[in-house]
């Protein structure tokens, strides 16, 4: 498998080099990917939970049944 490379530009000399990533750099990118995807999953889950609460709150309001505190919180600004 071809090792990933990066472009390094020395802005003083104008020399552009293509440099292979080190094992540490590759490992760091993988760590960053895991962190990012975990945060995105948390944000998606939170958005879906909020949407479900709003849907439930709306249905209960229409039906005239009591809301939970969490459902009511989605309606109060």
């Amino acid at each position, binding site marked *: 498998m071809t090792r990933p*490379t990066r*472009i390094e530009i*020395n*802005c*003083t000399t104008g020399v552009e080099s293509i440099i292979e990533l080190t094992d540490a750099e590759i490992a760091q*990118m993988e760590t960053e*990917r895991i962190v990012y*995807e975990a945060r995105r999953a948390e944000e998606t889950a939170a958005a879906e939970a909020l949407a479900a609460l709003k849907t439930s709150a709306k249905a209960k309001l229409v039906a005239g049944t009591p809301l939970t505190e969490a459902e009511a919180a989605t309606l109060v600004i």
Partner: protein
Amino acid sequence: MANTHTLIYSSTAGSGGTSSFDFTSIPSTYTDLLLKISIRSSSSVGTYDPVKIKINGSATNITVRDIYATGSSVGSEAPGSTDANIISYSSNSANTSNAFGSLEIYISNYASTSYAKSISADGVSETNGAGAILTLTSSLWNSTSAINAVNIGPYLGGSTWAQYSTASLYGIKNS
């Protein structure tokens, strides 16, 4: 472009792409720096990819707050301390073929050794369909060291900037 803008260097990824654009040994002779970037990530995770910035080779001391808009939502986010250097988002290989995102990054008073540096960014991924995102980003590099290197890379491990991705660094003088 105003004659106070000077192209320091422009680089384009060749076949196989590149894991990052690293501008090093940036002369301290300008007032501000401006990066103009056209990029497309090789990843197909989601419908756009985060773009990370490193200053002087490091991702630390960077904080970010952005406002974003997609085709279906708007919002604001501040990435956590472990991924705080996400400056914007780019197109990726899940988007329309050959569509590249656009990004501008402005770094004020980069050569100062007296105070922290503010960084602003204006970016958009491109695709002919749902899934594009626009971001306006305010960022701080909380260091009094002069900036002499800037690295722009894709965030997702194994991703590269596709062939023909381009990054151009301009120096801007205030007179």
